[in-house]
């Protein structure tokens, strides 16, 4: 024993290097074993799922790609070629222009493209991190751009007021982008550039805004004078259709419902009983009925409610209905965000002596809106899907256009292909929006997570 003790004293304990993990618990095989075949039941479910996926994918692939007919003049041609075994995509490509622009004349389609292009450019600064004053740009895009876009889409005679508003819109757009370019190139703001260029930099703060305003007015007057002779051919709204109408209705719905929803939500939480009662009644009434009844109400009752001289076109009636309906829903979304703000924030604002509106705009709303953004995007997705309902009251939105193809004698009875195409289109739009909202939730919520 002693011998053994002596020998062990100068040998340090050296463990053998640990064995690699069994090959079937790591890597791809390990992952598969763990996630797909961990028990007999799971193995069975995996095989069943694989079978379901195989059946779905192979059938859709065969129908939509392998046997599909891409070029044909009539549905009969397709049927003669492949029967019902393959998709007749010719019926979709043939009508693609109508799906997007409705019956808008081909020669004037550039107006729609230009309008949406302007809107996208106007909103684009939101995604540039270095740009300041995003709220002003966003507000101008929502409040002023409709005049310019509306005129681009509808055309016709423009009165003095519309001409003025279009001038302001164009000027605001130019200003926004000048500002964005200044921000991106030098990190300064347009205001600072104008102020220093005109030599007002040394003047007191409250005078500095005058050169900016003056420049805006001058530019607006120039635009006003330039576009005096410019007139677009009038396009009746019953020519509007397709994705274009869907986007117009849901776009206006979004632009109106957000501010209206905020006002209604504030009213619902107000301490003034009369205002609260009105807001609660409005919200609860329109949240408890289906959108289709609101649409029917707008179509049948708006002409009764208004003086005989005013007879709004159908798209305006539908927009009114969509706005009312989505405002009520948005109000509840906003209320949810407001309720999530701790009472201490309100009390702290009041203790600082802020008035109600200052408290709301400086303390509560910025925090609440941040919390609400995912839900707001969710409501927008709902709104985009809900605009399909306007097809029931006879507006040629994307859905009714898709459905109308089958009524054409040459394409009689072609339902599956246009609807499939429409489903894919809606899916892509909504899916991108929902993924984006999840992304926002992660990036905006980063500060909230306790580590």
């Amino acid at each position, binding site marked *: 024993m002693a011998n053994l003790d002596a020998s062990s004293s100068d040998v340090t304990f050296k463990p053998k290097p640990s064995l690699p993990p069994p090959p079937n618990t790591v890597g791809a095989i390990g992952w598969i074993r763990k*996630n*797909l075949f*961990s028990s007999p039941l*799971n193995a069975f*479910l*995996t095989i069943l*799922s*694989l079978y*379901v*996926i195989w059946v779905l994918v192979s059938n859709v692939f065969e129908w939509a790609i392998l046997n599909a007919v891409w070029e044909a003049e009539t549905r009969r041609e397709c049927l003669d070629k492949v029967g019902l075994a393959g998709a007749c995509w010719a019926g979709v490509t043939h009508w693609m222009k109508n799906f997007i622009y409705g019956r808008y004349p081909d020669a004037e389609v550039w107006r729609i493209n230009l309008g949406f292009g302007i809107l996208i450019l106007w909103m684009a600064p939101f995604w540039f991190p270095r740009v300041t004053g995003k709220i002003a740009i966003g507000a101008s895009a929502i409040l002023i751009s409709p005049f310019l876009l509306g005129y681009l889409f509808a055309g016709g005679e423009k009165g003095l007021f519309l001409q003025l508003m279009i001038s302001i819109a164009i000027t605001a757009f130019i200003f926004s982008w000048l500002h964005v370019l200044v921000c991106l190139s030098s990190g300064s703001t347009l205001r600072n550039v104008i102020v220093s260029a005109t030599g007002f930099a040394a003047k007191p703060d409250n005078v500095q805004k005058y050169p900016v305003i003056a420049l805006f007015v001058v530019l607006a007057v120039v635009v006003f004078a330039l576009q005096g002779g410019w007139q677009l051919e009038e396009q009746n709204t019953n020519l509007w259709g397709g994705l274009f109408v869907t986007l117009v209705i849901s776009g206006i719905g979004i632009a109106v419902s957000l501010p209206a929803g905020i006002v209604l939500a504030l009213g619902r939480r107000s*301490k*003034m*009983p*009369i*205002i609260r009662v*009105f807001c609660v009644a409005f919200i*609860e*009434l329109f*949240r*408890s*009925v*289906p*959108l*289709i*009844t609101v649409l*029917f*109400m707008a179509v*049948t*009752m708006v*002409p*009764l*409610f*208004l*003086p*005989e001289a005013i007879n709004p076109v159908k798209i305006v009636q539908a927009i009114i209905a969509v706005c009312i309906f989505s405002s009520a829903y948005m109000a509840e979304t906003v209320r949810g965000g407001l309720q999530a703000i701790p009472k201490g924030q309100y009390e702290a604002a009041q203790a600082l002596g802020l008035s109600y509106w200052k408290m709301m705009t400086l303390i509560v709303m910025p925090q609440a809106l941040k919390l609400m953004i995912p839900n707001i995007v969710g409501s927008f*997705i709902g709104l985009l*899907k*809900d605009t*399909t*309902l306007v*097809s*029931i009251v006879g507006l040629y939105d994307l*859905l009714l256009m*898709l*459905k109308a193809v*089958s009524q054409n004698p040459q394409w009689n009875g072609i*339902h*599956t292909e246009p*609807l*499939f195409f*429409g*489903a894919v289109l*809606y*899916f892509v739009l*909504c*899916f991108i929006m*929902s993924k984006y909202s999840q992304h926002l939730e992660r990036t905006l919520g980063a500060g909230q997570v306790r580590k």
Partner: protein
Amino acid sequence: MAVVDRGASGQGSSLSEIVNDERYRSVFYQILVFAVVMWAGWYLFTNTAHNLEARGMSAGFGFLNSTAGFSISFSIIPYEAGDSYLWVYLVGITNTLLLSFISIIAATILGFFIGVLRLSKNWLVAQLASWYVEILRNTPLLLQILFWYLAVFAILPRPKQSFDVLGLGLFELNNRGFYFPAPVPGEFFGATMLTLLAAVIAAYAVAVWAKKRQNATGERFPAFWTGIGIIIGAPLLVFLATGSPLEWDIPELKGFNFQGGGSVPPAFCAVFIALVIYHACYIAEMVRAGILSVSHGQTEASYSLGLKPGLTLRLVIIPQAMRAIVPPLISNWMNVVKNSSLAIAVGFPDLVAVFMQTSLNQSGHAIEIVAMVMLFYMTVSLSISGALNYYNKLVQLKER
């Protein structure tokens, strides 16, 4: 501005006091809003009265008793052309309620199933379920309804080549609709139904007694299986004792169509299937969120107390998850009722289709009809949200 004027008659200092006093301001704003709303209401009312007069129409609910001259393709309460508009309203309500009711049940079952699949440890199953949810949730319901109707149910074969569902010769699907055997109760069938009612009450009583005893003594009693036994066994005994007084009227092909049995039109099937699979997505997400909301510590605590996984699920996880699932679930049911109105797009005669479209076009009483339809939906949703509030109070965390 009224406040300012009133202040101006007093002294200078009291003017600013009144203008800056929050109470006066709030009264002033309220009066202002009230006046604006009243003015808008009055404006709309006078316009409407003027327009109605110009069109030679009268307002009022008198038209409800006059006869509606159209027929309705499907109704569960007897209707024929020539019944009154009030009866049309009731036909529409019953059709809407029938469609919503069975859609709600099916969507809830499917939704729970898919919600559980989404949480499966099997990666492939979870992915499959999550893609099901993503794809169906991100396409408009109306498009799905039209798809089912136009691309599936409208191109079904004629009655002669009916598709035999389940292959038993009992359920037939063709382009006229879905045909199924209808029960024909015999003379003493009422006795069976009464026994069933009594059995349900008895099973409930047993459950209450078992719980009381367990609380008092700790002894467990298989109340669930006893209850099932009572509910199935007792009515079955009475049913057999009274000589099986229930026959099935099986649909048969006679001439060009099926005769006998019950049937629903293709539009009904299309809306039903679309509603079920669309709303099942939302319910699946709620179930998933609800189960995830129960912290894992609860499971571990329950295991450490020695509960088996099955009991853990039943006694610990599900009761807590239900607290998070039920409120959104019920508001989703409300959405099913509201979305069932999309049946109008494929011509199923629900309330909106028969009353708000056909009756409105025929009688022209827009305001009354819109008000009545909205009243129905409001009644449904207010009663559902009332029940929801009651439930919420019941299951709320009782904090001390």
